[in-house]
C-alpha cells in the first residue's frame, strides 16, 4: 500500500466520526430546550430514512465486491425471504438476518 492509502482513510474516518459526534453533542446541549417531535426533526428523520433506504437498495440491487457476482434474482429472493421470516417470527432480528444471509449462500451455492 502507498502511504496515502494508509493515512487517507483515517482522515476520512476522523471526518466521519466528527460528523457523527456533532449530533450527539448537540442533542446533549439542546436537550430540554427543543421538541424532538417538531417539523424540523421530522424532515431530518425523512432524509435519514431515505438515505439509508437508498443505500440498502443499492447494496442489494447494485452491490460491489463479492455480492456483485451473485445473480440479481437470488439477492431479491434472499431479501424477500428475510422479510417473510422476520415478520413471521414476530420481528426476530436474528432469525430474519439469518434467513436472508443463509438463503443467499444456499441459492448461490446451488446455482
Amino acid at each position, binding site marked *: 500500500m502507498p502511504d496515502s492509502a494508509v493515512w487517507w*482513510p*483515517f482522515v*476520512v*474516518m476522523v*471526518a*466521519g*466520526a466528527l*460528523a*457523527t*459526534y*456533532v*449530533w*450527539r*453533542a*448537540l*442533542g*446533549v446541549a*439542546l*436537550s430540554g430546550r427543543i421538541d*424532538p417531535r417538531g417539523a424540523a426533526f*421530522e*424532515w*431530518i*428523520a*425523512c*432524509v*435519514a*430514512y*431515505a*438515505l*439509508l*433506504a*437508498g*443505500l*440498502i*437498495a*443499492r*447494496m*442489494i440491487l*447494485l452491490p*460491489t*465486491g*463479492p*455480492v456483485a457476482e451473485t445473480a440479481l434474482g437470488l439477492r431479491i429472493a434472499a*431479501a424477500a425471504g*428475510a*422479510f417473510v421470516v*422476520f415478520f413471521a417470527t414476530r*420481528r426476530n*432480528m*436474528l432469525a*430474519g*438476518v439469518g434467513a*436472508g*444471509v*443463509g438463503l*443467499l*449462500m444456499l441459492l*448461490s*451455492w446451488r446455482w
Partner: protein
Amino acid sequence: MGDGGSSRDYGGRRQAAWAGARRAVGVPALVLGASFIGFGALVQQVGLSLWHALFSTATGWALPGQVALVELYSVGASLAVIAAAVALTNARLLPMAVTLMPVIRAPGIPRWQYYLVANWVAVTAWVAAMRDCPAMPAEQLLPYFAGMSCTLWAVTLVTTAIGFALAGRVPAIVTLGLVFINPIYFMLVVAADVRTRTRVLAALFGAACGPALYLLTPGWSLLLTGLIAGSLAFVTGRARIWQD
C-alpha cells in the same frame, strides 16, 4: 417502592454499571455483534486494513454511517461528500440524544460526563435505557447507561476484528454471506422502524432513488437520495396533514 418508583434499585453506582453490562450481553450484543462482523468483512473486501476497521468502530460508533462511509470511500467520493452523507445518515442521533438525556440526568453530575457518554448514544443502548432507566434511582442512571454502552462498544470492536479476519480466509461463499449481513440487517431495521406514513414514503422513495442515482453519479448518489427523496416524502406527508 412508592418513593418515585425506584423498582430497579441495584444498590449503588458500581452495581448499576455491572447491571448495565449484563443487560447488554445477550440478544442485543448478538445482533449488534453480527452486524459488526459484516462491517469488518466489508472493510476487508474494499481493501482497507484492520486498523481502519477498528478505528472506524472505535470513533464513529454508528453502523449505518460507518457502512455509508466505507461504501462511498470505495467508489472514490470526495471527503466533503462523505462527511455530509455520514452526517445526514446519523442525524437521527440528535433526537435520540435529546430524548435520552432527561432519562439519564441526575443532580450533581458534571455536564462533561454527559458529553462523554453521548458518544455511545446509539439505537441498541437507547432502546434499553429508555425502557429501564425511568425505574432506577437517579445516581445509578449514568453508570447503568455507561456500563451497558461500553460493553456493547467492546463487543463491536471484537466482532469488527473477527469479521475482518474471517473475510477472505473462509470459503468465498461464507465471505459472501458476511458482506450480505448489513444490507439485510438495515433493511429489517428500517422496515420495523417506519411507523408513520411519511417515513414509509421516505423509505420507499429512497429505495427507488438510491440505485437510480448511483448509476448517474456514484459519489453523490447517497447525499442526493437523502435530500431529494426525504424532502419529497416530508412535503407529501405535510400536504396530507394540511388537507385533513
